[in-house]
């Protein structure tokens, strides 16, 4: 660890009692609490931070804030590795590890720099021009080299170990920005009793006041105001938080960086928290950002914004150079020049304007600053760092460059090209700012309802006026929420002397090349390496619309979203086109205002929490019985129950086989269940099912199919009539939610006259299907109060009985084609009923089976399920034409008669069996005429299983011509794996087509 050679002996807002150690590119350095990574690096004399995106040019620290285009680093290691973080926004902590990006093999010796030498080849449109058309194939070859040569940091490869949270917040007045005007607005609003949230991006409140010399009267003002705000219980101060998005109805997206300033988040704390905040009024006190001036080599390390220079010397007590040139086109840079000169550093000012105010000339002379009015820095010189600047005379009226005047040696060049109010949040609401020629800045024009703008964001330079405006806007925002504001609400108990208000500017964005200087790159967008020449090229090629210019050059499209480059680009394009800036307009503003980690937006909704998980009432029993689970919609269902050493395939085949030979039971609790009651229930069911339900008698169930209004099959299930006006509907597991919503829609929007009440009872009932030739023996042995004689309780019958004290509703229905019952019991009895069946089942050879065996059994019977009811198929496609009642109309009946849906050439359901018992079939395979494996084929395979009964793989699928192909052999083609399997078309009713078993 070394001393900090560029740290002033005293001053700054750092905590010198807390020395911190950190690493950059493997070397140890020292800093202080209160430093940013950037200020600590500068204190150690480190200016070279990274290599640029495209040309691998050396880049340093350009700003002191979140607008930083150059100093991007990677932080931390392993799962906490985080690329592309602006060093200017990183709060230093002990043990921080940072690394430079996009350099190879090393930051100070980057072989990729060769790209810079041949960079004319890589102008805007390089990829389009080089890799489209006949040479397109070359992209495949070159892509991996190009991807390695260009870009930002690398993504982490390990799982992020930290937690991210989401929160919802509400307030009356949201104040965005914790600078002077934002604090004033929060104070005035807070004093009225309104619930106020003040959001500040940085760790400290004060905004630009923090960049002023320490010990001034603004420090006392800041202490007074922040102290009072902290005492107000109705004011919440959220620091380290960014308002990144402004949405409809005064809803805002906030990102709170809870643990980013710590090595790891504090115990029980998330790394970051994403807030959705709803406000009734909002005050934007978002400040403004300084702009660069574009000239040759303006990206060299050692070139930075004047405001950044001022911030480093005053806030961090860092002298970023020993010999400083300040290059400006306006008054404001003099504040930085004077503060640096006061620290005893040699400062020269190159001012584009020939007429500099007498006061500033006097101040400069008094501070020992050499002033060069009417001059421009035409270019910076240096290899890895600025060593000198070429100064030429400049005619600011014509914006033309004159003769080379002198070469000024320097190791820091501060630049100020004017200011840009931060109005992105207004822009996100569609309120585009307009360009004020006189002030050379975009200012707010139309202000959306509920919004107010105050402070520097309005373009106001004077602190006193900014504070007054903040107080006023805070008061009126509180009043708009209905709070009374007392007459003294806008007075603060501390005062300050205003700095001299400096507003004069000659708006020149780019300096022309001096006649004798030779070619040097002039960068507009540092982060995407977009230069002055790229803008010229794009305009020459006709990309004159600002949106086209942006996309063709990628200007403003990097992580910084053009915060320092957009306005300069507009000014340059406007000048080249000879049109006013306002005619060009601005590009569209979209959230987020600054980069947001995807992890923060996902919050806790990852992995198992990505979507809700629904479990059957018997879930724990299944888990204890060794079930392997699979998902069906939101549900976790037993997939199969492997015996020790048994493969998944062997397990489901054993389970399915046992159902055909003895008896099995399966948990079907996930089926959707809807209780339908009311005098018009029969009429309602008659309208929503394709088949008739008005004839269903009490004590019987009926299989029903529903269509969507467009005539396509929506869902199926059985519905039982329990009493005169009471029905019990079941749906598929996956379709339950959609069916319920659609039925409610019909009742409330289309048929409000029907007296029907629907209640979802899916979670209220546990359900078990018992199936197999010995199914009746088992159920009859266990259930009392029911006559199980075939005639007394026939197929599709519904009865009520008891297992011990457990009430059971029995439906004699079958999905497997075996003699089967579905037993429904209130969810709390589910485990007890399952256990009772399990205990009683041993003598009957009972097996438990999962959804894989369930699928095998239903495919053997040709019963359609989700793979067939897949949103494109009609009743006739699935061989269910008989389900379409001709005696009535129902939802979907009219459009089911559309030409396209009754076309005889539609693909229709068939059964398929592998021609050889030795091969497997695959769902999703394309069905083709033998040997003609082209295009979409003639159909596809929807469901596949091994059939224990047939001793080979069988499938269901859809094929043009349907059952007219019965007996023929076609090819099932699976190009992804290069498989071709011969399959024979046959009836999908593979097992017991007459239904002898289930009626037995």
């Amino acid at each position: 660890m070394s001393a900090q050679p560029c740290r002033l002996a005293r001053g700054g807002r750092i905590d010198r009692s807390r020395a911190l150690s950190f690493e950059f590119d493997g070397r140890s350095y020292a800093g202080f609490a209160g430093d940013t990574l950037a200020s600590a690096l500068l204190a150690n004399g480190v200016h070279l931070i990274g290599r640029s995106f495209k040309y691998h040019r050396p880049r340093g620290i350009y700003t002191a804030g979140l607008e930083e285009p150059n100093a991007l680093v990677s932080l931390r290691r392993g799962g906490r590795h985080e690329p592309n973080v602006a060093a200017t926004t990183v709060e230093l902590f002990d043990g921080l590890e940072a690394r430079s990006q996009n350099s190879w093999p090393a930051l100070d010796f980057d072989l990729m720099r060769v790209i810079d030498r041949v960079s004319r080849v890589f102008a805007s449109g390089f990829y389009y021009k080089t890799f489209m058309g006949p040479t397109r194939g070359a992209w495949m070859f070159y892509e991996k080299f190009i991807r390695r040569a260009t870009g930002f940091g690398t993504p982490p490869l390990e799982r992020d170990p930290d937690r991210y949270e989401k929160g919802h917040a509400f307030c009356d007045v949201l104040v965005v920005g914790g600078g002077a005007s934002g604090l004033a607005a929060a104070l005035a609003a807070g004093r009225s009793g309104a619930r106020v949230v003040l959001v500040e991006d940085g760790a400290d409140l004060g905004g630009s006041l923090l960049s002023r010399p320490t010990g001034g009267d603004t420090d006392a003002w800041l202490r007074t105001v922040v102290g009072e705000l902290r005492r107000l219980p109705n004011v919440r101060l959220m620091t380290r938080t960014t308002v990144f998005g402004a949405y409809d109805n005064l809803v805002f997206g906030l990102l709170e960086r809870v643990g980013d300033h710590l090595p790891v988040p504090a115990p029980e704390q998330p790394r970051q928290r994403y807030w959705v905040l709803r406000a009734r009024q909002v005050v934007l006190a978002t400040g403004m950002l300084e702009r660069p001036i574009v000239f040759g080599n303006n990206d060299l390390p050692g070139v930075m914004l004047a405001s950044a220079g001022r911030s480093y010397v005053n806030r961090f007590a860092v002298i970023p150079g020993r010999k400083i040139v300040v290059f400006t086109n306006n008054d404001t840079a003099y504040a930085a020049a004077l503060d640096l000169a006061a620290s005893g550093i040699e400062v020269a000012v190159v001012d584009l304007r020939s007429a500099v105010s007498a006061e500033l000339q006097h101040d400069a002379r008094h501070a020992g600053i050499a002033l060069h009015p009417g001059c421009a820095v035409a270019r910076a010189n240096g290899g890895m760092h600025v060593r000198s600047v070429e100064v030429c005379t400049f005619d600011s009226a014509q914006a033309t460059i004159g003769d080379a005047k002198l070469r000024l040696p320097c190791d820091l060049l501060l630049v100020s090209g004017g200011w840009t109010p931060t109005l992105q949040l207004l822009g996100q609401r569609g309120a585009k700012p307009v360009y004020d020629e006189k002030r050379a800045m975009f200012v707010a024009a139309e202000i959306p309802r509920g919004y107010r703008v105050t402070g520097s964001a309005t373009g106001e330079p004077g602190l006193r006026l900014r504070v007054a405006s903040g107080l006023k806007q805070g008061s009126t925002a509180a009043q708009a929420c209905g709070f009374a504001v007392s007459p003294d609400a806008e007075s603060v108990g501390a005062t300050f002397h205003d700095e001299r208000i400096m507003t004069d500017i000659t708006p020149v964005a780019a300096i022309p090349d001096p006649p004798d200087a030779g070619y040097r790159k002039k960068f507009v967008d540092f982060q995407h390496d977009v230069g002055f020449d790229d803008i010229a090229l794009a305009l020459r090629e006709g990309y004159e619309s600002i949106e086209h210019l942006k996309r063709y050059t990628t200007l403003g499209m990097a992580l910084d979203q053009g915060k320092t480059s957009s306005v300069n680009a507009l000014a340059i394009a406007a000048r080249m086109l000879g049109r006013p800036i306002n005619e060009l307009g601005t590009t569209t503003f979209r959230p987020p205002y600054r980069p947001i980690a995807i992890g923060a937006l996902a919050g806790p909704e990852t992995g198992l929490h990505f979507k809700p998980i629904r479990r059957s009432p018997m879930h724990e029993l299944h888990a204890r019985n060794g079930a392997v689970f699979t998902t069906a919609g939101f549900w976790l269902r037993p997939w199969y129950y492997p015996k020790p050493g048994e493969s998944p395939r062997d397990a489901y085949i054993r389970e399915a086989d046992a159902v055909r030979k003895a008896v099995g039971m399966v948990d079907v609790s996930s089926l959707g269940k809807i209780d339908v009651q009311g005098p018009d229930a029969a009429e309602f069911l008659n309208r929503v099912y394709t088949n008739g339900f008005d004839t269903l008698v009490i004590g019987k169930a009926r299989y029903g199919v529903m269509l969507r209004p467009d005539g396509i099959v929506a869902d199926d299930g059985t519905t039982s009539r329990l009493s005169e006006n009471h029905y019990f509907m079941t749906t598929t597991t996956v379709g339950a939610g959609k069916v319920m919503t659609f039925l409610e829609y019909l009742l409330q929007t289309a048929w409000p006259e029907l007296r029907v009440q629907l209640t979802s009872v899916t979670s209220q009932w546990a359900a078990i299907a018992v199936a197999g030739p010995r199914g009746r023996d088992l159920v009859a042995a266990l259930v009392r109060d029911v006559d199980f004689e075939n005639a007394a309780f026939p197929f599709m019958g519904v009865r009520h009985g008891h297992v011990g004290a457990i009430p059971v509703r029995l439906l004699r229905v079958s999905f497997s084609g075996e003699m089967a019952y579905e037993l429904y019991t209130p969810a709390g009895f589910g485990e007890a009923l399952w256990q009772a069946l399990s205990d009683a089942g041993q003598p009957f050879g009972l097996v438990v089976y999962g959804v894989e065996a369930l699928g095998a059994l239903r495919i053997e019977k040709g019963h359609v399920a989700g793979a067939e009811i897949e949103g494109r198929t009609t009743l006739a496609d699935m061989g269910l034409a008989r389900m379409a009642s001709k005696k009535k109309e129902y939802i979907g009946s009219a459009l089911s008669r559309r030409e396209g849906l009754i076309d005889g050439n539609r693909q229709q359901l068939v059964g398929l069996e592998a021609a050889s018992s030795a091969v497997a079939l695959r769902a999703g395979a394309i069905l083709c005429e033998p040997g003609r494996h082209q295009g979409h084929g003639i159909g596809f395979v929807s469901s596949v299983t091994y059939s224990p009964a047939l001793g080979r793989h069988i499938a269901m699928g859809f094929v043009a011509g349907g059952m007219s192909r019965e007996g023929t052999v076609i090819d099932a083609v699976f190009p992804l794996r290069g498989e071709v399997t011969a399959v024979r078309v046959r009836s999908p009713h593979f097992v017991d087509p007459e239904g002898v078993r289930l009626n037995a």
Partner: protein
Amino acid sequence: MLRITCPFCGERDQVEFAYGGDAASVFPDLADADLDRWTDAVFMRDNPRGDHREFWQHQHGCRQWLYVVRDTVTHEIKSTLPAREPRRAAATHEGRKG
């Protein structure tokens, strides 16, 4: 993000609701099996600039369907009613598609 005032539950966030389609198009009577009228009702939609009548369901609340007038330019919710009411009351002037 929208804030929708459910006539049954009060003002709630958009995340509690599900959009349920254009409320200007309503199903014809089932007995009316006219293909064109059903095609209009199921497939044809206006895309107005300004007021748009639409159905929303308070899916994670009372599950009632609502009839909402929303401005497609400003996203302002102009009014909310139980979905049953306009259908009952205004079969007359809502039937502009017919």
